[in-house]
């Protein structure tokens, strides 16, 4: 393996223990950490700071940056005598819709996991086929669903027509488009939650279940009081990945509607990209300000996640 860092050769200094040998245990972790910290600092930590800095400027990405103070935020959030940026408002509320509806992936995943948690022949095949949508890239999921929704050629309208319901153009209708995209996103996300719960169910203590059964617990009561408490770690991870996934939604929107119709499917992450890197212009400063707002929304959740993990870490000692 060629992955070790340039560590001085140590086995030659036996007679007189050198400085390195004496401090080996204190130094080694830092040598091992150095490359990872370096990469992470350069590409993740420092850019966060830079984005904050850029958000106080007007900048086209090429020329000089012009300091504009909080002007970007004033325009975005409508402080003072300005109105809130309409596009920002739409994006923000769409983000809320994503957050709330995306959470449906958790109960849906649990439901499918309960359905599949049997030992009939071929069940392994079924489990992996149900999980399958998660492996496909979001770009392809987006394409698959936009064809599924097509007003004329799409299968959805063929099915609706079979039941006598009129054709709907989901992605062409500003009131429906966002929900159509979220439904597409729920497909792989539910698969992910399902696999988390299947693993969790596998580890449920059979003795507790038997004991509860003898006490007459079954169905919903059993699920709520005996099974779910034991699935708590799986639920926590499902919650984390679903929240992050909802706030990261970008690929599906870009592929399925490109923000349209009439900008009705924008979310903050997409709006930010549009402002700073699309044909509408290179307004990096304004884009950075949107990113900062999104960052603070995410920060609320990140703090909560980290706090929970920290508690577990402390408990484990």
């Amino acid at each position, binding site marked *: 393996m060629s992955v070790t860092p340039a560590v001085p050769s140590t086995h030659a200094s036996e007679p007189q223990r050198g400085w390195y040998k004496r401090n080996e245990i204190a130094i*080694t972790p830092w040598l091992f950490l150095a490359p990872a910290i370096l990469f992470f600092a350069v590409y993740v930590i420092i850019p966060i700071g830079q984005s904050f800095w850029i958000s106080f400027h007007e900048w086209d990405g090429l020329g000089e940056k012009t300091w504009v103070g909080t002007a970007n935020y004033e325009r975005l959030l409508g402080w003072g005598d300005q109105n809130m940026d309409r596009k920002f408002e739409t994006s923000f509320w769409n983000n809320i819709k994503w957050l709330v509806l995306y959470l449906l992936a958790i109960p849906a995943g649990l439901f499918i996991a309960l359905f599949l948690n*049997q030992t009939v022949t071929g069940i392994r095949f079924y489990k992996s086929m149900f999980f399958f949508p998660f492996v496909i890239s979001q770009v392809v999921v987006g394409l698959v669903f936009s064809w*599924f929704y097509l007003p004329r050629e799409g299968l959805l309208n063929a099915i609706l027509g079979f039941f006598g319901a009129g054709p709907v153009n989901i992605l062409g209708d500003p009131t429906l488009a966002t929900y159509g995209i979220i439904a597409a996103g729920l497909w792989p996300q539910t698969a992910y939650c399902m696999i988390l719960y299947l693993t969790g169910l596998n580890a449920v203590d059979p003795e507790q279940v038997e004991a509860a059964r003898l006490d007459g617990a079954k169905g919903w009561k059993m699920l709520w009081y005996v099974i779910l408490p034991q699935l708590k770690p799986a639920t926590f991870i499902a919650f984390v990945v679903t929240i992050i996934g909802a706030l990261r939604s970008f690929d599906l929107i870009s592929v399925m509607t490109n923000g349209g119709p009439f900008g009705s499917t924008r979310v903050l992450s997409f709006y930010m990209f549009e402002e700073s890197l699309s044909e509408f212009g290179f307004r990096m400063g304004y884009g950075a300000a949107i990113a900062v707002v999104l960052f603070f929304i995410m920060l609320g959740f990140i703090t909560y996640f980290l706090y929970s993990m920290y508690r577990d870490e402390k408990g484990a000692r």
Partner: protein
Amino acid sequence: MFPTPLEKTSRSWQISYQVLLPIALIIWLLPLIAVANFSIKPESDFVNGNYWGLPGSFEALNNYGKVFFESNMPRYLWNSLWITIPTVIGAVALSCMAGFALGIYKFKSNLPIFFMFIAGNFVPFQILMVPVRDMTVSLNLYDTNLGLVLFHIAFQTGFCTLFMRNFIRALPFPLIEAARVEGISEWRIFLYVVLPLMKPALAALSVLIFTFIWNDYFWAVVLTQGPDAQPVTAGITEFNSQFRAAYHLMSAGSIVAALPPVLMFFLMQKHFIAGLTLGAVK
């Protein structure tokens, strides 16, 4: 076991379950089945309005042949490969070492550094976008595979370190103590004691990162343009504008683009799921 095992339920439910299972699967995969069906149809089916029926004739070879020989698809696939594989190697290597440092040694800033990696892993991409793009441009790496690889390695190191550190934490610590008593130097402990025990973690992480990076779209759009360096996720949009409204070709292209991670998943299923569900069981 919950729900009640099938053997202990009524005969009628057992039969209904066996019937429900394939029906549920077909409904679940319906959008995908429709696209797979599209991809083997002849063009005439779309003209005649036979969209969702059986294909008029079996044109899989023709359609997929066009994808491989009359478009930039092979080039995009090649780029994807050259972005994905170096990233997997780089991110796994860096996080092995970082995970070792954070999992084995006790020092004051251990937890803060660990939490920095986790927190960084959760930030929205957009807050990194402008500076990272700017830096990539100024390093002359814009529109190159290397530019994407370096960023991906850095970002994935967050998740990978979380994974590796927790895995190493669960290894029996007395093993390391015994090696120390023997006078083995620390980096040899890493190479010869810890690393061999990490094989399952290495396998799990490699398939996961392969899938994540192959499927990345956002950074591909931000850091590359055109067929020289673009991976297949970004290239598919160009492919689709080349074959606008030719659904049989567009769907064949999408299936080709989605296939490598799917193969990876089916070949390495056990590792893949072990990686994804890390922490789902205490």
